[in-house]
Every structure is written in structure tokens, then in C-alpha cells.
């Protein structure tokens, strides 16, 4: 019995659906000429990238939710200009001296302009102050190592101290194998930090986006006071292939989707991207303390 866990899940996924539209990094986007077109991986419609941006990178024809960079997610979620980033210089070490880990991290830093797989900070949503974390699946497949855990825990501590709601957008294949038990322990570390919010009665909203699997699904992402997901995101603990091998059955197509989780009582709501900000606004308003 081999447990394929963590990164495997996302690797499976990315090889299967390689046709994601490429989301250019901030610098690259400015260089993109007007009128660049992109093809929807689901319905194959050809869409102007400019038009796609107006619909928050959701296909107008088939509602396909394109993958977002952390920058795009923050732009769509927070009030303009309100974001203040925390700990943006923190980078991974290589505690196990793991083959190629340093090189791969460096390459991801270069290609994405990011230092790690999560961006954290403070900002406002419809004028209400929040602490936010957004994972970026382009960096090491969004996997959780020491930096993701540390940045999240520092953000959670600030939320606890300043009594502000904490909002987390997950997008991750799970624990980062190259950091071994250090990465496994980030599941315990982030959950232990979230207990601070629990004990102080501070709101935590978890939003699972495509994909939220393995050790991230089995820790902070499932621990929201309110758990939301974007439509058709892959969410689950074990990878589809390993489950099929274990039970020797083929799984239904909708297995481990947001809708599947909603049906099985694991989510509060599936929220389309265009309704996300108004949904968050409503939740925050209901939890405002005078």
C-alpha cells in the first residue's frame, strides 16, 4: 500500500488538465499587447483576454473558473489600494538538503516573481478590515512548507491580537514533500494558530479554490467557521488515482468537486467568483462587533 499524498494529487491533476490559460505575472501582463486572445479549456471558446478580465477570469460561455494568481485574487477581493503585504521577503530553506529543492524554488521565484506559495497581509473588504492569506498554485504547486506555515501563523496572530477577521484562499496540492516532517508539522502549526482565533471568538472564513487537496485540505482549509468553495474546484484528501487503485473501482466524474462536497455536507456554500466579494461582505457585516 503506497499512500500518494500531498504533491502527487496536484501533479496528477496538472498532467491531466494541462490546458489552463496561462496567467501572466504582473510584469508580463503590462507587456501583453491589447487584444491577446485565449482559449477556454472547457468549452474551447476563443475569448479576448481583456474581456475575460472583465468577467473576473470566468468564461462567459461555460462559467469555467480560470486559475488566478495571488495578485489577481487580491485585486478582486480587497478594496482597491487597501492591501498591505506582510513578510514578503521570507523564503524557504532546505532543512533536509533535499535533491534539487533549492534550484526548483529559485526557478519558481524567478518565473512567478513570488517568494513563496502564499501571500499574506491586511486590507479592507467593502470598508471592513480583514487579515487575508492567498495561496498561489504557480509556486511549487501551492504546496505547504515552513514558509507557508510561518507566514500564515504570523498573519493569524495579527488577526488574533487586532481582533480582525481572517480570510484564507486555499489553492494547494498539499504538504511540500521536500521539507519532509517539517512540512507535515505545518498542518499542526497552522491548526494550533487557528485555535487562537477560536478561543478569542474571531471569525475565520476559509475559501477552497482549485485545487485544495492533501495536507492543506486536511488542516486549515477545512477549519473555517464558514467554509466556502469556488465552483468545480478539486477538493479532497487522497488523490483520485490512489483511491481508484485502493478500491479497484472507477470514481464518478464529479468525485471530490466543490459540488460533491456540498452534497456530502462538507461545505457551507459553493460561491461563483462574481458573487465572492458580496458574499464575503455579507458575512463580515453579520460578524461586525460594535
Amino acid at each position: 500500500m503506497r499512500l500518494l499524498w500531498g504533491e502527487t494529487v496536484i501533479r496528477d491533476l496538472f498532467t491531466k488538465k494541462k490546458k489552463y490559460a496561462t496567467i501572466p505575472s504582473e510584469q508580463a501582463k503590462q507587456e501583453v499587447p491589447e487584444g491577446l486572445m485565449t482559449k477556454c479549456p472547457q468549452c474551447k471558446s476563443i475569448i479576448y483576454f481583456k474581456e475575460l478580465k472583465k468577467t473576473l477570469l470566468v468564461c462567459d460561455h461555460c462559467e469555467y473558473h480560470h486559475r488566478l494568481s495571488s495578485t489577481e485574487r487580491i485585486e478582486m477581493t480587497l478594496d482597491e489600494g487597501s492591501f498591505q503585504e506582510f513578510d514578503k521577503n521570507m523564503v524557504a530553506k532546505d532543512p533536509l538538503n533535499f535533491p534539487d529543492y533549492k534550484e526548483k524554488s529559485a526557478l519558481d521565484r524567478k518565473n512567478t516573481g513570488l517568494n513563496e506559495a502564499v501571500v499574506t497581509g491586511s486590507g479592507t473588504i467593502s470598508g471592513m478590515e480583514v487579515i487575508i492569506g492567498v495561496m498561489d498554485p504557480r509556486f511549487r504547486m501551492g504546496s505547504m512548507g515552513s514558509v507557508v506555515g510561518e507566514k500564515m501563523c504570523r498573519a493569524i496572530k495579527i488577526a488574533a491580537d487586532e481582533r480582525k477577521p481572517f480570510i484564507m484562499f486555499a489553492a494547494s496540492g498539499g504538504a511540500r514533500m521536500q521539507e519532509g516532517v517539517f512540512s507535515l508539522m505545518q498542518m499542526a502549526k497552522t491548526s494550533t494558530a487557528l485555535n487562537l482565533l477560536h478561543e478569542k471568538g474571531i471569525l475565520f472564513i476559509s475559501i477552497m479554490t482549485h485545487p485544495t487537496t492533501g495536507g492543506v485540505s486536511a488542516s486549515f482549509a477545512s477549519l473555517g467557521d464558514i467554509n466556502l468553495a469556488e465552483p468545480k474546484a478539486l477538493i479532497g484528501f487522497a488523490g483520485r488515482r490512489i483511491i481508484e487503485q485502493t478500491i479497484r473501482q472507477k470514481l464518478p466524474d464529479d468525485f471530490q468537486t466543490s459540488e460533491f462536497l456540498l452534497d456530502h455536507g462538507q461545505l457551507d456554500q459553493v460561491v461563483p467568483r462574481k458573487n465572492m466579494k458580496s458574499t464575503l461582505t455579507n458575512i463580515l457585516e453579520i460578524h461586525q462587533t460594535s
Partner: protein
Amino acid sequence: MSEQLPFEKPIIELRNKISELKTFTREKDIDLSDEIKKLEVRLEQLEEDIYGNMTAWDRVQLARHSKRPTTLDYIEHLFTNFMELHGDRFYGDDAAIVGGIAKFEGEPVTVIGHQRGKGTKDNLKRNFGMPHPEGFRKALRLMKQAEKFNRPVICFIDTKGAYPGKSAEERGQSEAIAKNLIEMAGLRVPIVCIVIGEGGSGGALALGVGDRICMLENSTYSVISPEGAAALLWKDAGQAKRAAETMKITAPDLKELELIDEMIPEIRGGAHRNLEAQSGYIRQTLKSALLELNKIDRNDLVEKRYEKFNKIGEFDDENGLIAKE
């Protein structure tokens, strides 16, 4: 798996030779006692050499040994008055996790652990020690019960991992594990966790958020199995031996990385060679851990647990890409 492991072969061969000579002495009435004595000295050295220099892969094999003592074995030897408590009160009773109430050194405790099966039938019943959500939820129910009655919780960790199955996903495997992590973080009684065999990823950690994390010398703790890591890294599950070294999953490695509090020494050749004596070592560790933890105020305990986990991680806070630009 046979009782002998490949790396032990020279020891077994020498042992057999000594016993042959002894038989020969008895039957033929020839005095070979000098010869036997020499060989016994050599055996002693050989055992010290081999068991004193085990590779990560040797330890993986011992951790998975079919004769390796399980949670129920240790419960029998370490506790009195044990009464097993069943069921999660939501869905069912998962035999891959056992738990109940007992006394340790005369004091009430709650004891919980993953339970591998012994033999095929028992293994099927216990799903090879791989829990479904109801197993984790039973564990949590018993922990909350322990908190109500202010008794310490002792967790034995021994699983390849949470069960990767359809029904497990349908019933919320992720949520069940995650819930245990946050609830253990806030539990207002001492928690001592001991890895006794394999500590496989999230399914192990779901019983692992404690004030003390201990490992038997030949147990392992890992984010992914060596076979799984090898398949990912080198596209070859056969490289598991190499992955076991690279991943740093053994008790000595994890002690050195300061990821665990204590390594409990094992009987030479593995815990299965003398369960009684091995239980004695565990008893010492448990006794001193509980003695210390029972002195701490219950609220401080939660704070210390937060600090303990909050400091786990290796990162560089100064040298980010953006700072360099």
C-alpha cells in the same frame, strides 16, 4: 513478512551455527565449549555492529515488522483497568483506532491508538490500521471526554496513513483530520504522543498534536511513504531505500532535527524481541512526562502547546527575491 529481516541474516546464521555446535556437543559428547565461547563473543560483537549501525531502511522494515507490538499490546503491559470504548456517535466504530479509559501508575488516563491487525482476518477487520473519518472522530470524542474528567491523554501512533478510499472522502476524511488538529491544540489536559511503528502523514498527525512527541527508536514519521516519495522523485518505487534516507523519517534523524522531544530506546533487534522490557522503557518516559505536565496549569498547557508548534519550521526571513531587486 518473515520474522527475520534481510539485514539480520549474518546474526541469524551465526546464531544457528552456535546452536548446531551445542547440539553436536550434547549428542557426540565432544567438548567444544572453547569454540562456542569464541563464537558467542563474535555474535555479541556482530549484533552490536549490525543493530548499532542500522540504516533508515532497516528501521523502516522493523517499524513494519509483522511481529512488532501494537497499541493493544502496550495497553496490556502498561495500564490496568483498561476498558475499551467504542464508536464515534455519528456513523460507526472504526477498528483501525482503539481507545478507552484505564489507569496508569494508579491514576486515571484516556488511551487512544491506531491498531494494526495481527494476521489476515484481524487486518481486514482493522483495515490494516488505516482509519476512516469515524476513527478520528471516535478519538476526538474520547479526548473531549478526558478533558471533561481532567485526565491525561496518551496516544499511540502506528499507521501507514488515513485510508484513501471513496467512503472516507464522502464522510469527510480531511475535515475529520483537521478537526482533531485544532481540537487537540485547545485540549485542557496533558497529551503525550508516542510513535510506536509507522507514523504515516496526516492520519498519524491526527493523533499527534501533543505536549510531548516521542518515538520508539525504530519507528518512523513521514509526510509520504518512502515508496511514494521514490515514485515521485525517481519515478521508481524500487528506490524506496534511497528515499527513506533522503526523507529523514527515522527517530534518530527526527530527534537530531529537533522535530520530536524524545527517542525511546528499543530492545536490541527491535521491540518485538521483548515486549515486557520494551514496555518498561515506555513506562519510564510516560511517567516522567506526566509528572512534569501534570504540574502545569491547564490554561498554560494550551499556551505552551501553541508555542511548541509555532516554532516548528526552517525559513529565511531576510533574503527574499523582491528585497534583492
